[in-house]
């Protein structure tokens, strides 16, 4: 039986594990119970700074601490990080201060809270900021490993985590996970599905379904959207000749766009983008939302066939 876990729990565990580093500080905006920074708060209350429900202030308190030699981890819901976008732009990214921002509850997979809490544009907006590394891991193990690598990054980052549980893929495979390096989870030759976050496991399901029809798909976990692993995209584009991207994010500006930006200037292959079709969400269970948005395994498999037909 596949273990199920939420990526936000991996983030919380990583913060706790990083606590031994006296320079690591955690900034909260009244959502520590949700983003899972609460474990750090409990263990290291003197290095946890409550910013109240004030995300704009939180980002810049982080900037001031980063400029003073600390390694701040700030978290809130993905949707509320967007409220502090200009602080991230002007006060963090521009001076290249290593503040690590985590937006939990990203995507329509967030579920029943409805559209106000389902960020579908966070990856796009943070991807536009120079100096900022953008990540969206798919399971709690990779979230923990990637978060643990952030203190050595030396530049700002944005990581989206998810509220709800997804299959754990990396138990015992921690060594394979590195910021900026996509991971091939399944090797095929007909089409390559490049996915991030909660749609990685959906992509594996899609690949399994395709296999039963004699279509061999590669599946890539592109946990880092920026800098995008262009070498890996070139490789799978060459090997398979057709690409699909899959993300729980607006089709505009996210992983699909990042891959498209790369292939038009490098190794070209027909590309089908599976993502939220430029619309807002609504209340529903996580699995229901994937169907409503047409981003579940079924739609990824359909997109794969379409990409192959365009070869």
């Amino acid at each position, binding site marked *: 039986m596949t273990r199920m876990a939420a990526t936000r729990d991996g983030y919380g565990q990583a913060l706790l594990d990083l606590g031994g580093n006296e320079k690591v500080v955690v900034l909260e905006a009244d959502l520590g119970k949700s983003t899972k920074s609460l474990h750090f708060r409990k263990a290291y209350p003197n290095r946890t*700074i409550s910013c109240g429900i*004030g995300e704009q202030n939180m980002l810049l308190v982080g900037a001031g601490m980063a*400029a003073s*030699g*600390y390694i701040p981890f700030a978290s809130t819901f993905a949707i509320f990080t967007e409220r502090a976008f200009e602080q991230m732009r002007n*006060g963090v990214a521009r001076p290249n201060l290593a503040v690590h921002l985590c937006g939990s509850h990203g995507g329509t997979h967030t579920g029943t809270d409805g559209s106000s809490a389902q960020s579908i544009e966070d990856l796009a907006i943070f991807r536009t900021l120079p100096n900022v590394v953008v990540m969206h891991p798919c399971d709690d193990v990779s979230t923990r490993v990637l978060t643990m690598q952030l203190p050595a990054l030396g530049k700002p980052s944005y990581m989206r985590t998810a509220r709800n549980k997804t299959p754990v893929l990396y138990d015992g495979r921690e060594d394979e996970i590195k910021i900026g390096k996509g991971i091939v989870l399944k090797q095929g030759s007909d089409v390559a599905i490049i996915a991030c976050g909660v749609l990685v496991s959906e992509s594996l399901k899609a690949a399994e379904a395709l296999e039963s029809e004699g279509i061999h798909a590669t599946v890539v976990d592109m946990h880092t959207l920026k800098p995008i692993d262009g070498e890996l995209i070139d490789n799978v584009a060459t090997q398979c000749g057709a690409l699909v991207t899959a993300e729980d994010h607006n089709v505009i500006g996210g992983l699909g766009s990042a891959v498209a930006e790369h292939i038009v200037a490098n190794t070209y292959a027909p590309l089908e983008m599976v993502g939220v079709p430029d619309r807002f969400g609504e209340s529903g269970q996580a699995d229901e939302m994937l169907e409503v948005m047409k981003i579940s395994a079924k739609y990824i498999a359909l997109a794969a066939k379409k990409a192959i037909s365009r070869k």
Partner: protein
Amino acid sequence: MTKSISELEEIARKCRVEIVKMVHRAQAGHPGGSLSEIDLLAALYATRLRVRPDEPKWGDRDRFILSKGHASPGMYSILAEMGFISHEDLKSYRVLGGVCQGHVDMKWCPGVDFSAGSLGMGLSFGMGCATAARLDQSDRRAFVMIGDGEMQEGSVWEAAMAAAHHELGNLKVILDRNRIQNDDFCEAQMRMFDIPAKWRAFGWNVKEINGHDMTEIMEGLDFLEAPENCNGPSILIAHTIKGAGISYMENNPSFHGAAPNDEQFHQAMIELGEVEV
């Protein structure tokens, strides 16, 4: 760091000359807010800030954050006066590749602790510096200068509330209350009513002074540093005149962000005692 009142006034006068020269040379920039803040900056830098011009990144330095980052000529002039940058560097104001970027920038100019230019950000950054100092058990302080128009940004009040909550006694704000913002007088753009009462209500120690009277400025800085005011954040509300020191710029919203022409420049140099009539 002892300086007489007349010595401080002379530093400020020299800075005013440089401010006007910078914006005249660039034919752009923000003279009004630079001239309103400069007496405060001169006193702060010359008598209070624990900084090392020959070691601008010294870890235990006091931080100074010019949150109204467009009023950069004022800051550049005092940085040159203190020796962080040269007077020659001032000619790079708004010039490609210059250390004196249009708005103060920590990546470009020695002695600048925060890249400002977007209003409402400096106080939060200063809170971060003050929090880090406390964690380090250091006695360094974070001084932040904000503008009055800037207080219309909601994020200022997020920071004001948070700094008081965390009882950051090492966070010191100076408000340049010059009553003019970009488009017009503050009173016309967005009335702010009882400013001292607002800060008191947020839990801050508050004192008001005339921001052009060096004796009052020194008393105000004493207030910010007084041990009894280090139980929480403090603010010095300095009543100033936009464009102070240049007659035609004073209280004139047109000189928030406009440069003097050659004739006006000449007149300014006369008024500042640089050119004999």
